[in-house]
């Protein structure tokens, strides 16, 4: 276990290194010139060169990357070109909100998705099953922007149950989590139904029934752990998918997470921020996958860590 963890951590560090290298290279190759954006429209070529030099952007790629890495080791992600603030500070100030949203969204997904999937599998072939599956597809196919605005309109504007966006209390968290969760819930519901159907006809479920266990015990204790394996694998994946949707959801609900930061940075080629956000999300994804891999053998003891 410890050896495995150690190896995985080293591998994870390598992955992060890889991500940083590729991202850095891609940004280096990007034709949009950040210096031009910094220097403004009225700048003379000389000023532009001057700024380029100051930022070290005139150096060869290898030198630039090495410099970035050495600073990275001491936790310095550089300064934003456009905002001129420390990237670390920008990210740190927004990370808690994004993490909170992610936790909220995962909870929503699991609650909605797994229960939908479970019910559908147990009631396989019935109208309930079909309704739930259509619902899950609606969840997956609906554009998040529209879902978010609809929820906001109904529950915040019309019913005033929740605030119209913002950040602070748990009531602020509900609608954005739900918006993000609905997409994932659709996935989870489908996956859950599929693997649950598979599991429910296994012999050991028959054994459990023969023991006269309550339906809940059969489903939750015997079937669920067997069926949930593919779902666990989604922990890491989820984080990746979140990074896609987080921009939209955050801006609909005025949620101060890193999605908006990233989006603005991409639009303006603010390289230090792009790098920083990329590394942070890569870290989260790698961690999520590692977690999923570590959890898997606890759920299915036949899987060995290796």
């Amino acid at each position, binding site marked *: 276990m410890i050896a495995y963890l150690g190896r995985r951590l080293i591998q994870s560090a390598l992955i992060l290194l890889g991500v940083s290298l590729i991202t850095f290279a891609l940004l280096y190759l990007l*034709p*949009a*010139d950040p*210096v*031009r*954006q*910094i*220097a*403004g*429209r*009225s*700048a*003379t*070529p*000389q*000023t*532009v060169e*001057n*700024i380029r030099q*100051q930022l070290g952007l005139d150096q060869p790629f290898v030198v630039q990357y090495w410099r970035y890495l050495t600073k990275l080791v001491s936790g310095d992600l550089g*300064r*934003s070109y*456009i*905002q*001129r*603030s*420390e990237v670390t*500070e*920008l990210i740190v*100030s*927004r990370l808690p*909100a994004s993490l909170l949203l992610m936790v909220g969204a995962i909870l929503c997904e699991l609650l909605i998705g797994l229960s939908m999937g479970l019910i559908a599998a147990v009631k396989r072939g019935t109208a309930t099953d079909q309704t739930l599956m259509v619902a899950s597809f609606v969840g997956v196919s609906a554009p998040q922007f529209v879902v978010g*605005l609809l929820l*906001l*309109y109904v529950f915040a*504007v019309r019913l005033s149950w929740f605030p*119209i*966006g*913002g*950040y602070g209390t748990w009531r602020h968290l509900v609608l954005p989590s739900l918006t993000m969760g609905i997409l994932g819930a659709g996935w989870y519901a489908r996956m859950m139904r599929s693997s649950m159907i598979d599991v429910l006809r296994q012999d050991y479920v028959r054994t459990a029934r023969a023991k006269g266990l309550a339906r809940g015990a059969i489903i939750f204790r015997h079937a669920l752990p067997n069926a949930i394996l593919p779902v666990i694998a989604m922990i890491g994946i989820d984080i990746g998918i979140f990074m896609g949707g987080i921009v939209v959801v*955050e*801006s*609909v*609900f*005025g*949620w*101060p*997470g890193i999605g*908006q*930061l990233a989006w*603005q940075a*991409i*639009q*303006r*080629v603010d390289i230090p921020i792009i790098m920083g956000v990329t590394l942070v999300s890569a870290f989260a994804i790698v961690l999520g996958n590692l977690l999923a891999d570590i959890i898997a053998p606890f759920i299915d003891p036949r899987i060995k860590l290796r």
Partner: protein
Amino acid sequence: EDTIDPNAKQGGEIIATYKDDVTTLDPAIGYDWQNWSMIKSLFDGLMDYEPGTTKLKPDLAESYEISPDGKTFTFKLRHGVKFHNGREMTADDVKYSLDRVTNPKTQSPGAGFFGSIKGYDDVAAGKAQSLSGVTVVDPYTVKFELSRPDATFLHVMAINFSHVVPKEEVEKYGADFGKHPVGTGAFKLAEWTLGQRIVFVRNPDYWHKGLPHVDKITFEVGQEPIVALLRLQKGEIDLPLDGIPPAKFQEVMSDPEQKARVVEGGQLHTGYITMNTTMAPFDNVKVRQAVNMAINKARIIQIINGRAVPANQPLPPSMPAYDKAFAGYPYDVAKAKALLAEAGHPDGFDTQLFAMNTDPNPRIAQAIQQDLAAIGIKASIQALAQANVIAAGGDKAGAPMIWSGGMGWIADFPDPSNFYGPILGCAGAVPGGWNWSWYCNKDLDAKAAEADSIVDPAKSEQRYKMWSDIYAKIMADAPWAPVFNEQRFTMKSARMGGADNLYVDPVHVPINYDNVYVKDVQ
């Protein structure tokens, strides 16, 4: 003083919203339309404009003198003006601020505005730390010597980049000064929670007695304009400063109650199509003229719900030197076709039209595309992120045509020269420059320089006439097809008071925070 609205009420708090987070509040760096007027409320310059107008007036300066040759400006500073930290502002601070903004280490995007000050080149090259042309005569007098006469200099003394900053605070915060701004302005920064809100509170020591009117402005950032509007409709906020989102425009304008709270005004903006004059077939003036005649501007304005007026020249109507008499190119498809045929393209040609990817720009680009198709020009659209379009425009072989929307020129100050240099002059027609037509007319450059050397305010009409001629000549060469001048529609809550022109202030974009007030305080 005279600029204060006699009906204005003191006190009250307002909430304004922006979609994007504010990048920086450092006057030497901030160059977004969003932080532009925020900085104006935190800092002051030697000059300013009458609220809601484009009329220059002295601000931190009490008065100024211009030497007859137009090369020396002497400003007398106001006494007793205090920075937010309590220290009095003096001529040293003015000099320091200008040294700072021109110093390449500051990486100010506005440094180029000060190019006419003596010693600028040395500072820009890093050879000097200080502008030799700026001298502190006494604590309340500062003298500027220019290397050439510059008619726009008073405007330059009014733009944010020249605003006065206290040295000790700048040195204290270093690169983070933009997050901890300290100026002499009407408001001071009380709170900045990244990604959530910025709070301005009234500066009790503001030298301009009676201003500002409101005690506190909270800027909430990070929310969709649509949602901001919903919040306005629910009475949660006062000013959705991203404006009325297109999707909601009809809804708002068809409701008399809401429409009454919308203020419409012009802005110093032109939306245009650039044609790369160095690239075939746009190197042929006939082709460019044909394009000018092919565009159905009325239809395009219809597509954006009539939120603009058709343009026929680079300058917007509210700009001095705008030529009302100028006819421009008519919308005439037959003529356009004929011109194309004359140019040797009777069947048209294939080309590309670049545009920014945010609504409504791709839609406008498609309308343009259809208009071009009508005369046989088959333009494929490249809708890209802002930075990529800018990159393509700055590359000589990059983009045949660009629709400027979303990145188009909003003037830094209300002077005709501001529409020329970087975007139509030879100086901008360099790799990475902003002259996306790559139009370089040495004659016009000379004429522009000549016009800008007319410093005497009494001769400004003559100067404006010269500029009108320059733009007319440009239109004859047709490197651009001007399409429209955008109108601004600012919506506010019912409790907001103040003259309408404060809400569409041409200089304080989007609004003038110092002079607005709320009606529901006693």
